[in-house]
C-alpha cells in the first residue's frame, strides 16, 4: 500500500449524499450498495431514488440523468434529507440537473474524465463549469474516475470499453472511503451478483478497490468522516423498500388467514416490483398471473376471491382508472379483494417514475353509484408491510374490496426495519360458510348469500364446492338476504344503506387517531401517506423554534377514525400538507366543517422538511 497522507477522521451526526449520473451509469445500484453498507453499520437512513421514465435516454443528456439520494445518521431520521451535503456527479448533465439542490459550501465530487467538449455541449454548458469559477461556492474534487478504472482493469486484460462500465464502482469505493464504510459487504456482494470469476466481477472489484484506495492515497482529501450507528431499539433489522414490504405483507397476511394468495396484475411503473417479488416466491404457494390488461388483472383476482383465495391486484393511477368498474362489481358482490395503488404523478400517463398523492379522491369516489370501500395508506416503506396485512384483515372480515395506497416514493425508498414478531400477530378468520343459513316455509334448508352478520354487517363468503350452498351473485341489484335480482326501489335503497353502513362500521374496530404533541398546541399538522417523514421532521424543527405544534397521521382514510373530528376541533389551526391540490383537506372540511389549511406540492418529489417548517411558521407567525 502506498503511503498517503495521514487523514483525520471527523465525526458527523448525519450526512446526505446524492449520486447522479447517466441512466446507464448504474447510479441506483451504487446508491443501493452504499445504503446497504450503511444499514449494516447501524446508521438510521432514508433513501430517495429519483430516476427518469426513459430506460436509456440519449447518453449524456439532461433527460437521461438518474439520481439516488441517501441520508445516513447517528440518530433517528425520517426523510432522505432536504439538501445533499455531497453530490457525486458522473457527467456534466448530472452536475447541471442537480447543482441547484446543493447548498453553498457543500461538497462536489465530479468524474472529470467526462467533462469534455461533447458532454458539456450535451448538457447545455457553454463553458466548462469546472474552470469558469461558477462552482466557487463549493468544495470541488475533480477525480478521473473513468481513466483510473480503465487503468486498473487493463492489468487484468479488460478492454477499456468494458472497464468503463465499472466506473460507478469506483465512485462507490471513493465515497465508501470518504464515509468510512466497510468494504467487505460490497466485495462479497459483487462476487454473489456477478459470479466468482469473469471479467465483470473482476472489473467491478478492481474499480471499487481503486476508488477506495484513491481516497486514501491521493493527496486530495484532507479528512474523511464517520457517522456512528444510531441508537436503535434492540432487535433484528432488515433494509426494506415499500414495494418489497407490500409483497411480504401480502404473503404474511395470506399465511395468517390460511388462504392461498393470487395476484392478478399488469406491469406498470412504479408498482411492477410487487409483481416481480411475488413471482419469485412460488414456494409460498402464491399464484401470480400477468394478465392481458389491468381489467383482467383485477378481474382474475376477483374470480380467485370468489373461489376462496386471497385475490390481490397491484397497479398505479392509469390502472386504477381501468379497474374501477370491476371494483364496483366487487363492492356489489361483497367479496374480499385487495387493490394496491402505488400512486404516481397524473393525470393520464403523467409522471410514471415520480411520486404524488393525487389518487385519494379517486380511491374514495372513483366509481359510479354509491360505492364505498375502505382505504388504507402506508406512511413509510416498512409500514407498507403492516398496511398490507391490515388491508387484508379488513377485506376478509368485511367481505369488501380495500384500496391500499402507496406511492412512488415509498415503493422505491428504503429504510431500516425492525423485524416484527410474527408469533404476536392475530390470525385473520375467513370464516367460510359451511352450512345453510335459512329454512324455507316448507322446512327445506337453503342458503341466502346476503344475510348479514349482525356485528360486521358482512355477508357470508361461500366459495363453490359446498353442497347445499349453491347460489348466484352478480352486479345487478340484489334483493336483501336472498340475493336474487331485484329492481325494486325500496330494496335498492336498503342495499345502498347496508353497503354504506358496513364500511362506515369499520370505524368501530380501527384504532383511534393518535396525536403527537400537547393538547394546547397552537397548530395541528394532519397528514396521510408518505408525507409522514417530512411532516415529522418539519414539526420537530418548528418545536425547536419554540412552538407548540401537534402532529397526527391518518393510516385509515375511509372510514376515518372515530375521534378525528374531536382531534381537529381541539386545535385553533390545522395544516394539511399533501402531494396534491388538497384532497384530504377537502374531505375533512366537508366532513367536519373545520377550516383546515392546505399545503400542496405536485413536483413529483416529496416535501422537504423545510417546506413543512416554513408553512407551519407562516401559519403561526404570518398573521402576527
Amino acid at each position: 500500500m502506498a503511503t498517503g497522507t495521514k487523514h483525520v477522521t471527523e465525526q458527523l451526526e448525519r450526512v446526505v449524499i446524492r449520486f447522479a449520473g447517466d441512466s446507464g451509469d448504474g447510479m441506483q445500484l451504487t446508491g443501493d450498495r452504499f445504503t446497504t453498507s450503511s444499514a449494516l453499520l447501524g446508521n438510521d437512513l432514508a433513501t430517495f431514488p429519483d430516476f427518469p421514465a426513459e430506460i436509456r435516454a440519449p447518453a449524456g443528456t439532461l433527460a437521461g440523468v438518474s439520481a439516488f439520494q441517501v441520508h445516513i445518521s447517528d440518530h433517528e431520521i425520517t426523510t432522505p434529507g432536504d439538501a445533499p451535503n455531497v453530490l457525486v456527479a458522473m457527467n456534466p448533465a448530472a452536475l447541471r440537473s442537480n447543482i441547484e439542490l446543493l447548498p453553498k459550501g457543500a461538497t462536489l465530487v465530479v468524474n472529470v474524465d467526462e467533462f469534455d467538449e461533447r458532454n458539456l455541449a450535451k448538457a447545455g454548458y457553454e463553458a466548462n463549469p469546472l474552470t469558469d469559477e461558477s462552482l466557487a461556492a463549493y468544495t470541488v474534487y475533480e477525480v478521473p474516475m473513468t481513466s483510473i478504472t480503465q487503468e486498473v482493469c487493463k492489468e487484468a486484460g479488460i478492454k477499456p470499453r468494458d472497464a468503463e462500465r465499472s466506473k460507478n464502482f469506483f465512485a462507490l469505493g471513493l465515497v465508501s472511503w470518504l464515509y468510512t464504510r466497510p468494504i467487505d459487504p460490497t466485495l462479497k456482494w459483487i462476487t454473489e451478483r456477478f459470479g466468482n470469476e469473469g471479467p465483470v466481477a473482476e472489473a467491478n472489484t478492481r474499480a471499487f478497490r481503486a476508488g477506495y484506495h484513491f481516497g486514501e492515497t491521493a493527496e486530495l482529501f484532507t479528512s474523511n468522516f464517520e457517522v456512528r450507528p444510531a441508537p436503535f431499539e434492540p432487535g433484528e433489522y432488515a433494509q426494506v423498500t415499500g414495494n418489497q414490504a407490500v409483497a411480504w405483507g401480502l404473503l404474511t397476511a395470506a399465511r395468517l388467514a390460511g388462504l392461498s394468495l393470487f395476484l392478478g396484475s399488469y406491469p406498470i411503473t412504479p408498482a411492477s416490483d410487487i409483481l416481480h417479488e411475488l413471482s419469485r416466491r412460488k414456494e409460498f404457494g402464491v399464484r401470480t398471473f400477468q394478465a392481458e390488461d389491468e381489467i383482467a388483472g383485477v378481474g382474475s383476482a376477483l374470480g380467485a376471491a370468489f373461489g376462496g383465495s386471497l385475490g390481490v391486484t397491484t397497479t398505479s393511477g392509469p390502472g386504477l382508472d381501468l379497474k374501477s368498474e370491476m371494483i364496483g362489481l366487487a363492492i356489489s358482490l361483497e367479496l374480499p379483494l385487495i387493490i394496491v395503488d402505488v400512486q404516481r404523478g397524473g393525470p393520464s400517463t403523467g409522471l410514471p417514475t415520480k411520486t404524488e398523492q393525487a389518487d385519494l379522491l379517486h380511491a374514495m369516489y372513483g366509481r359510479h353509484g354509491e360505492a364505498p370501500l375502505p382505504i388504507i395508506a402506508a406512511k413509510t416503506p416498512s409500514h407498507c408491510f403492516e398496511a398490507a396485512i391490515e388491508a387484508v384483515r379488513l377485506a376478509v372480515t368485511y367481505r369488501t374490496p380495500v384500496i391500499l395506497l402507496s406511492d412512488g416514493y415509498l415503493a422505491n425508498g428504503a429504510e431500516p426495519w425492525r423485524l416484527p414478531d410474527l408469533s404476536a400477530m392475530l390470525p385473520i378468520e375467513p370464516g367460510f360458510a359451511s352450512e345453510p343459513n335459512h329454512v324455507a316455509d316448507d322446512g327445506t334448508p337453503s342458503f341466502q348469500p346476503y344475510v348479514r352478520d349482525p356485528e360486521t354487517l358482512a355477508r357470508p363468503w361461500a366459495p363453490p364446492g359446498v353442497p347445499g350452498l349453491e347460489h348466484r351473485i352478480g352486479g345487478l341489484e340484489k334483493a336483501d338476504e336472498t340475493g336474487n335480482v331485484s329492481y325494486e326501489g325500496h330494496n335498492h335503497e336498503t342495499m345502498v344503506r347496508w353497503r354504506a353502513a358496513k364500511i362506515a362500521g369499520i370505524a368501530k374496530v380501527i384504532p383511534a387517531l393518535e396525536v403527537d404533541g400537547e393538547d394546547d398546541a397552537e397548530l395541528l399538522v394532519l397528514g396521510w401517506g408518505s408525507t409522514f417523514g417530512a411532516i415529522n421532521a418539519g414539526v420537530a424543527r418548528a418545536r425547536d423554534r419554540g412552538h407548540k405544534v401537534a402532529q397526527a397521521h391518518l393510516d385509515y382514510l375511509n372510514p376515518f377514525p372515530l375521534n378525528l373530528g374531536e382531534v381537529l376541533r381541539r386545535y385553533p389551526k390545522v395544516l394539511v400538507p399533501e402531494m396534491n391540490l388538497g384532497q384530504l383537506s377537502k374531505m375533512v372540511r366537508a366532513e367536519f366543517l373545520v377550516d383546515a389549511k392546505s399545503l400542496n406540492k405536485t413536483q413529483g418529489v416529496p416535501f422537504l422538511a423545510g417546506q413543512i417548517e416554513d408553512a407551519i411558521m407562516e401559519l403561526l407567525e404570518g398573521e402576527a
Partner: protein
Amino acid sequence: MTTAIPVTTRKDWTSDQEVRWCPGCGDYSILAAVQMLMPDLGVRRESTVFLSGIGCAARFPYYMNTYGMHSIHGRAPAIATGLATTRPDLDVWVITGDGDALSIGGNHLIHVLRRNVKMTILMFNNQIYGLTKGQYSPTSEVSKVTKSTPFGSVDRPFNPISLALGAEATFVARTHDMDRAHMQETFRRAHDHNGAAFVEVYQNCNVFNDGAFADVTGRDVRSSMLIPLVHGEPIRFGAEGERGVVQRSDGQLEIVNVADVGEDALLVHHEAHADPGLAFALSRLASGPHEPTPIGVFRAVERPEYGEEMSRQIVRAQEQRGVGDIEALLRSGSTWTVD
C-alpha cells in the same frame, strides 16, 4: 375420500328463478339442452360454476342451480381465469354473447384461448345486441340496418370460429339452437376438453334479428346447408351426402358434387391437426350463414393446461426450496442485529 356422484335430473340443475328471456328466444332451447345434459356429465352441482358477463345470454347463470356469477360486460373470461386456476377441482362454464365476447371482451377472449385455461365457453351468437334493444354487433353482416346504423353498418364482421382459431384455441366448435342433440354432443365434447373450449352457438333473436340463421338451420334446409364435421370422416353433406368438400391443388377448399369427383377425393376431417390451417380454411368456407356452413368440432388438440402449469411451478419451487417460511423471507436480504 370421494363419494359417488349423486344421480340427478334436469330439475336438480334448474334454479327457482323465473326465466325472463323473450318468448320464443333461442336461449330457451340452449338452457334446456344444458340443464338436460348436466346429469349425464358425471359432475356435481356444488363443483359447477356458471360465469357470465352482460347481455341476454349473461342471465344464464341465474337459471342454473349451481354456483354462479353474473359479472360485468366482457370480463367473464378474466374472472374465470382467476377462478379456474385457483380451483382446478371446479367445472367452470362461461356463458357469453357475440357483443360480450367479441366486442367489449374481445381482448380477454383471445388471451384465455391462447393460454388454454380450463373452461367451457359457450358464445351465443345472434348477430345483434338484444339487451340494449337492437344495435348491430361485431358479427352482424355488412350493411345491417339497425337503430344505430340507420344507413346500414359499414363494419366487416368477425367470423368467431376464425378468430378463435387465430388465437390458437385448442378446442373450437359450432352448433345451433335448433338441434338439441347436436348442442349436447358439442357441449359434452367441450366440457370434457382439458383447456379452454370455445363453442359458437347460432342463436335466434326472434325480436331484433329474427331468422338470422334460418337459411342454414331451418328444418327443411338443414341437410343441404349444414356441413357436419366428423373426425376421421370425409366431409360431405346433403340429404344423400351428395355434396362434399375437397382441397384443390392451390390449397383452397371447394364444395363439389361427390359424383363429379369421387368419394376418395373428399377432404377427410381431422380435428387434431397440430396446424390449425385446415380448420381455419373450413371456417372460411361460408362467408355468412346463408351458404353451406360447417358445424361440429373444427379443432380439438391437446396442449398443457394453464392452471396445471401454474400449479406445477409451485410444486417444483416447494420441492426445491421447501415450503415458504415467512421468518426466512423477512431475512432474505441483509439483516443486522442491534443489542
